[in-house]
């Protein structure tokens, strides 16, 4: 029905919107309609923002974060602790850590985890860059904030080995009961991990 009621530009807009996370063809149609109805307030500013982001956003040469400046604003920020690097899997994890506001050191985005099923090998990840940064004289600690999955922890052990020759302390985030979690509703593995790392 939409093929008869909309031109190719609108169909293209719907098709591209439907590729975004959380949107399918039906919700993409609704989003497109919403944008078209609010052309001045939403559609034009969004198009300008997208064009701006496409033109200016870069990957930080130090930590692999996204930003419009290179090095990124986190790497360039004065007053952050240069002696601690927090290694995360993806940029989304870096943003999550920053949202929490509990870490004031530097970051390093590894770019994924080792995975046989997905064919990701050590050389496909940004591990060499982390080793190089950790070798700087002022670095004292590397925090491995990788996911608590088999692939995530296999990668963490691998990075620990790669850092073994450096005089840095390698630590990891704790695994266990989440804040607000009830033991009755936790899976056996989480309870086992929490018990193993009790203090």
């Amino acid at each position, binding site marked *: 029905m939409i093929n008869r009621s909309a031109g190719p530009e609108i169909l293209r807009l719907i098709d591209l919107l439907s590729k975004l*996370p*959380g949107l399918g063809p039906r919700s993409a149609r609704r989003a497109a309609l919403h944008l078209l109805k609010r052309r001045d307030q939403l559609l034009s500013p969004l198009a300008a923002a997208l064009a701006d982001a496409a033109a200016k956003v870069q990957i930080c040469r130090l930590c692999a974060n996204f930003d419009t400046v290179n090095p990124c604003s986190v790497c360039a920020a004065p007053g952050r602790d240069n002696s601690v690097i927090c290694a995360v899997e993806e940029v989304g994890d870096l943003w999550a850590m920053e949202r929490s506001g509990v870490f004031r050191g530097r970051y390093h985005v590894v770019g994924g985890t*080792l*995975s*046989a*099923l*997905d064919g990701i*090998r*050590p050389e496909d990840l940004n591990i060499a860059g982390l080793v190089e940064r950790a070798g700087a004289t002022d670095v004292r600690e590397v925090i491995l904030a990788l996911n*608590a*999955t*088999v*692939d995530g*922890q*296999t990668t963490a*052990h*691998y990075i*620990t*080995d790669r850092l073994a020759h450096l005089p840095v302390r390698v630590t990891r985030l704790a*695994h266990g009961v989440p804040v607000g979690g009830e033991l009755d509703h936790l*899976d*056996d*593995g*989480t309870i*086992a*991990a929490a018990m*193993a*790392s009790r203090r």
Partner: protein
Amino acid sequence: MAEWSDHAISLGLRRFGETGAILEVFARTHGRRRGMVYGGASQKKRAPLQAGNTLRVTWKARSDDNLGFFTAESENERAAVHMADAEALAGLAALSDLLAGALPEGESKPALYDAAETLLDMLGHNDVWPALFVRWELGLLTMMGFGLDLSRCAVSGSNDGLTHVSPKSGKAVRGSEAGGYLDRLLPLPAFLIDNTAPATPVDIRAGFRLTGYFLGERLFADLNKQIPEARLLMIDRLVRAGRLSPG
């Protein structure tokens, strides 16, 4: 409508779409199978589906050759227990990647499944499982049709003093019968033919070299694949932990 339930070892999970996941398992009587898990990308569902965990799975599809859907209940969440133990986690990853890479889809291998369960249960005992892993790899080769004949010497027919294996035939050979071919043979550690023989770091390393040769040159070469990286990482880790001799 095709449907079955079985005990299964998870071989891994990959995201599919935003909320779903494709689960790959080694089911006891249904072999290696894949299927979609609704909501499998969620934190709650992902934890029990980690590689190395034992599950009770139910698979449903319109027909047997469809991808199908899994529902899974956890039976043994050992992956979480081993996450802090680098050696055990390396063993777990190597075992699941070897199974994922070597097993044909849908072929029942209950004996191999039972052996894998035993090995996974032993992974916390780092002084025991490396030798057990070598034996399990010998079993994997046998189940996949590339078994070694370690019962008697290929040259003399004698069943004592076996020290080497021919890389060509996969048969045991007495070193004294090998003549000028000795340096082309693969050393056969005693613990692979005698259950009472000790498995020293040198023996276990020789065992991994033996099984690694036939896994790489026969089983995985036949599948046009490389031996999984996780096996190399496991051996490297065991060497650094002093469980295997270097070199």
